[in-house]
């Protein structure tokens, strides 16, 4: 059996699954329930100056009958008194000493406020800090959250203040509401941050109520931009993670991956693309803490199957596979193949290809079932038919190289090789 225990900047946890700083980590009762369920650690919901939240707070995007494909919130940082939070953090650490307790911070924009807050939180015995430079709503208007993370210079300045006072590891959480996360990541790395975490939520409007005409979530006839998260944001998070994992100035810092992690497969993908652990929120908010059981078991079984003993055996393994478009091999070619024994004749591949792609599937009319076959000479190997096919492994992509040797676009042009003629 593989060892799935995690060591992130010396912060140990029995598994790499932490709950992200969010409503599930706002109170002792929630955190104890999470630890009882088996979560490896938590990032306690952001502490800072006293705020007040509104009602309502969340809204979601449903798709094809599945609820909460995407989720957004307009909640601020913890609205509970600091003393109560600190007392409860201390109690949780005492009851579950083997779990990671990281505390998210967002102090007012002056050095003293940060130093004071750091001192108070360190007194609880917490294992690390996460700096909230990402919250996209409410706090930004006060010059905090994403307003800090969007400006590399300000972010670096705050990290410097923090590093002056902190004696435990510091993780800086990055906002995705920028054209690239790399500049801020570089700046905070240079300023001394021990680790990084990403992504925070993405500014969003999930939808508009077609009866009231008010966007979601509804607050007395109005709404505001909320922070988007959940399964829908995973691809964006993976891209941003990879851009940090590939940059030599930022990839020396361990990264905690966040953004739509819902199961062990998602988690493995984050680790393969350079995260050392993952943080989860929406999946727990939609299904409860019990989801961690399969996350641990699935990760373990997968590692056994692949022969990985510890997480470090595969962290970052897929990072080199992301390259530049110009380096892709133009001689690589594959074409679709429809397994007629598995085909259920739904025609989804045909209509997708015919209407929106390359007219590479032929239809032989039948009563009631048409026969669909690939016109190999027309197929560009785009994968669309395979993606829309409802039957597992019915459509496969079969490699048919144009030529054995590797050649990229730059070389192709240099040699004056033929371009498309259609």
């Amino acid at each position, binding site marked *: 059996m593989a060892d799935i225990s995690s060591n992130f900047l010396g912060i140990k946890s029995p598994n790499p699954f932490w709950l992200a700083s969010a409503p599930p980590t706002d109170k002792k009762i929630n955190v104890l329930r999470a630890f009882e369920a088996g979560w490896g650690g938590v990032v306690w919901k952001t502490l800072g100056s006293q705020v007040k939240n509104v009602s309502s707070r969340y809204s979601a995007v449903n798709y*094809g*009958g599945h609820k909460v494909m995407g989720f957004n919130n307009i909640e601020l940082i913890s609205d509970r008194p600091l003393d109560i939070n600190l007392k409860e953090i201390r109690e949780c650490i005492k009851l579950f000493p083997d779990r990671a307790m990281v505390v998210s911070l967002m102090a007012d924009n002056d050095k003293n406020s940060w130093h004071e807050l750091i001192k108070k939180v360190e007194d609880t015995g917490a294992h690390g800090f996460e700096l909230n430079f990402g919250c996209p709503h409410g706090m930004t208007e006060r010059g905090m959250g994403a307003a800090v993370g969007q400006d590399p210079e300000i972010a670096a300045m705050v990290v410097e203040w923090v590093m002056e006072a902190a004696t435990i590891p510091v993780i800086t959480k990055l906002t995705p509401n920028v054209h690239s996360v790399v500049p801020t990541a570089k700046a905070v790395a240079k300023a001394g941050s021990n680790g990084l975490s990403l992504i925070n939520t993405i500014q969003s409007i999930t939808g508009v109520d077609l009866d009231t005409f008010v966007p979601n979530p509804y607050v007395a006839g109005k709404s505001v931009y909320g922070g988007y998260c959940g399964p829908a944001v995973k691809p964006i998070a993976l891209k941003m993670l990879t851009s940090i994992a590939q940059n030599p100035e930022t990839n020396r810092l361990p990264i905690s991956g966040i953004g739509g992690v819902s199961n062990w497969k998602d988690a493995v993908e984050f680790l393969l693309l350079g995260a050392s652990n993952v943080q989860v929120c929406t999946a727990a908010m939609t299904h409860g803490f019990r989801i961690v059981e399969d996350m641990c078991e699935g990760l373990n079984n997968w590692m056994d199957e692949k022969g990985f003993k510890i997480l470090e055996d595969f962290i970052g393994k897929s990072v080199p596979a992301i390259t530049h478009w110009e380096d892709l091999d133009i001689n690589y070619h594959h074409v679709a193949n429809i397994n007629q024994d598995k085909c*259920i*004749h*739904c*025609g*989804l591949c*045909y*209509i997708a290809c015919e209407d929106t792609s390359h007219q590479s599937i032929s*239809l032989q*009319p039948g*009563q*009631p*079932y*048409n026969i669909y076959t690939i016109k190999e000479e027309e197929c560009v190997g785009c994968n669309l038919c395979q993606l829309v096919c*409802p*039957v597992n492994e019915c459509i496969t992509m079969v490699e048919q190289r144009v030529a054995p040797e590797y050649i990229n676009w730059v070389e192709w042009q240099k040699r004056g090789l033929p371009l498309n003629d259609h």
Partner: protein
Amino acid sequence: MIKNNRLTAEEYEKNFSDIHPPFDNETAAIVEANRCLFCYDAPCIKGCPTSIDIPKFIKQITTQNVKGSAHTIFVSNIFGAGCSKVCPVEKLCEGNCVYNLLEEKPIEIARLQRYASEMAMANNWQMFERKPDNGKKVAIVGAGPAGLSCAHVLSREGVEVTIFEKEEKAGGLMTYGIAAYKVTPEFCANEVNYITGIGGIHIEYEKSLGKDFTVAELQTQYDAVFLGMGVGLARQLDIPGEDLEGVEDAITFIYNLRSKELPAIAVGDRVAVIGMGMTAIDAATQAKRLGANEVTMLYRRTQSEMPCTQHEMDIALLDGCEIIWLAAPKEIKGVDGKVTTLVCSKMKLGDADASGRRSPVDTGETFTLAVDMVIKAAGQMPFFDIVEQNNLQHKNGKINIDATGGTNLAGVYAGGDAVNGGKEVVNAVQAGKDAAASILQYMGLV
């Protein structure tokens, strides 16, 4: 003994409640609708005689466009609500669903169709606006599925339609010939009202062709005529004892069930049902549900030749009906003029006949069943005499039509059971639509 009032009011209600309950909430309908793959050139559509765009109407349920969904159904089949309850979907749309090939439960197309179409009926969403009256008049014989479907298409185009119906209610077999646990009289009345709600359709009740008017008279008074009077007469067994008390035909039995209160319907202690078609199933199951102790179905061929679907047969079996294969009635015996015994010939399968099914051959052996009621469901006969008297070309009473639905008489069209000898409601609906299209062309309106 044949007697009525065998059950309590609660038992009657339970036994005759809706056999295919609807989705009772939006969530359930949407969950099922979301299972639909939205196939291209969908096999389910090809299984529907009226070619309803099934993936489209199901997709419209998922987007909560139920009005659009109902329109998609009704534009192809104005009896969409009734068909969702009475169609043998296991051999039509649902039988073709690609999920069957995955050994996955097919989409509940009928139930979804019922969801959208009944909502339209309940809210009286009239989907079609009648074009201005164009002065053309068409007579239709029979207010069943064929006649009403034809009438609806014609009325939409601004034709004034008069339907002559021999019964006191419209709906034809929907109203009088289908098991009460599939459709209720109230539903049938609502459906007829919904269809005629478009306007321009006038129904003359209790007016029979052959008794009250002739086709020739209609030809002179109207621009065109559609004959959709169906079939009516039960096929006789032509065996001794057929006139004994306790011998009834399934059509009459079901007609009484549908037109009277259930406790008034008498049924025997031990009932034999002759035949294995849909009507035989409806008669057998309802005899059992009315309180008969034993119901035995007899069929002269085997299960592989039976006309009903497996699903329908299962309803009868689950109701406790027995089935004896390869048995043909030979003689009905009685005491004091009342049925006591059914003598049957044991059959075996011979060569294939014209229908492609293997013919039953008498083995010479017999057996007897002690019964007090015999229900004949060996098929229905077309109105041979009426067709003959009105100079319509026909084959054994089934009216001959050409590719346009036209008969040998000028401006006279026909369709439905009167032509095909007895198929599903949905076939009749399509025949009505097809004939309407030809009639519009004949009258120079398209």
